[in-house]
């Protein structure tokens, strides 16, 4: 009878990954570039499940094998109970989001700046402001940014961080990037709220260094985007 356990475990895992791919939610867990590998994996699992059902009767399965099948089933049940969403701002704060705030003194290599200022995303702005030799040329530029609110007591008054995660491989490595945003009243926003900020880039000071801030002119609450993460490649 344990072969039915195997069958359900193998098929179940394949169904889970197919569901995630099919509903375009796989990007919430891994870099979508791996989707091909995951599909390949699912196909193999299905073949394995079918083999187990029709030809797998005689394999003697020891206790560790059964434990493994049960663990997989646990993972499957677990996945149905957990809400699929972006990582929260608390995790961004844990991962040191405030150290990712761009400083004007840092000199890094220059990135090509093709996009008009209003179309640049949050992470593009973070990269520009951190890596451009003279970010001051961007002061006065208009921006429209979407990101997650992250609040920290050590921030200047009326300031919060707008952040997004960048994922390389899977969300285990997700690292947060953030910009500082000046708002009229930080009480209106909670950690992990998604907002769209329209404003201007200007200079400000944080932790003794000159930084690029966003002075918010208009803030709207938005739904968590379908693609909350940026991917490294």
């Amino acid at each position: 009878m344990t072969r039915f356990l195997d069958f359900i475990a193998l098929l179940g895992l394949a169904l889970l990954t197919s569901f995630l791919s099919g509903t375009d939610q796989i990007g919430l867990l891994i870099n979508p570039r791996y989707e091909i590998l995951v599909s390949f994996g699912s196909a193999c699992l299905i073949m394995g499940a079918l083999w187990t059902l029709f030809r797998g009767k005689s394999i003697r399965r020891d206790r560790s094998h059964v434990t493994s099948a049960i663990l997989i089933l646990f993972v499957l049940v677990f996945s149905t109970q957990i809400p699929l969403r972006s990582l929260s701002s608390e995790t961004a704060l844990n991962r040191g989001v405030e150290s990712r705030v761009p400083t004007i003194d840092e000199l890094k290599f220059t990135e090509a700046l093709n996009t008009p200022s209003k179309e640049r995303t949050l992470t593009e702005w973070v990269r520009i402001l951190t890596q451009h030799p003279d970010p001051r040329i961007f002061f006065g530029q208009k921006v429209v940014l979407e990101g997650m609110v992250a609040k920290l007591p050590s921030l200047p008054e009326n300031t919060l961080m707008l952040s997004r995660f960048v994922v390389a491989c899977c969300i285990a490595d997700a690292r947060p990037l953030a910009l500082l945003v000046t708002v009229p009243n930080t009480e209106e926003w909670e950690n992990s709220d998604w907002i769209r900020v329209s404003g201007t880039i200007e200079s400000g000071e944080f932790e003794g260094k000159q930084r690029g801030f966003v002075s918010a002119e208009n803030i709207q609450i938005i739904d968590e985007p379908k693609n909350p993460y940026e991917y490294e490649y």
Partner: protein
Amino acid sequence: MKSFISTSELVDGGLIFLGIIIEAFPFVILGVLISGFIRVYINPKRLMRLLPKNPLLGCMAGSTIGFFFPVCECGNIPVARRLIAQGAPLHVVITFLLSAPVFNPIVIVSTAVAFRTLPIIVVLRVVISIVIALIVGLLFSRVKKTDEWTQAEQIHKQESDHTACFHHIDGIDKFFSNAISEFFEMMRYLVGGAFIAAAIQVIVPRQILSGLGKGTISSILSMMLLGLVVSICSTVDAFFAVSYSGQFSPLAILAFLIFGPMVDIKSLLMMRTLFKTKTIVLISLLSASLTFLSILILHVYLNLSF
């Protein structure tokens, strides 16, 4: 350590747990497919005869084999298990396991892309990883009774159990039965490893890990610790590592790039399918010390900055 963990962070931990499993399982499958193929279609005696008797050459052969298996640690472990079962010498397997995650085309290219402003990092990463793998392998070539250090006995017993009931084992059935058994064997450690890795990420804020090191020695250790805890695939860990270039020196980041692929929470658990605990402990300690030592030596002779 955190004194209070919010519900959001617990949910995040659960998502990270799932993410690790979903990301890694295709590599496990690739590994067991290769392993099954070797078991069913390749003659073990011929394979073993191809390996050089000389320990150093044997280790180098182990490294070279690794070049053709760019499947991440999760995929290399089933292959290593197959090699052990076929009677490959311990030092060959260990060198393979330690060098394969870095010495392959995909990792070399991705490191080169991530560190395009400092290409010497690529060279240092590959060369030092291979040297460390060779040294650890050579140390293990002094082992006389391989079976005391590996799970060969357990593997053989499992395999004879699994196939005892087949009267006619033709290729396909043997292949499937092997691949599926090995898949289940690996998965319990992957699930366990993912759970521990995710739990650590929730309990220990990452910025504490990276905040530990400002001085030379502590920054190296802190990056090595990060490599241990953040179980990220070596195929793309260069992109993750380069993001620390603002806070850490290139050599400290190099320590992450060398040590991470060799030893991390996930692979430590999965190695239980290959080796006895004492072997795993020894491999980990040796890799850690050699990585630390080589970075220190480089620090004396090289002055690198981003």
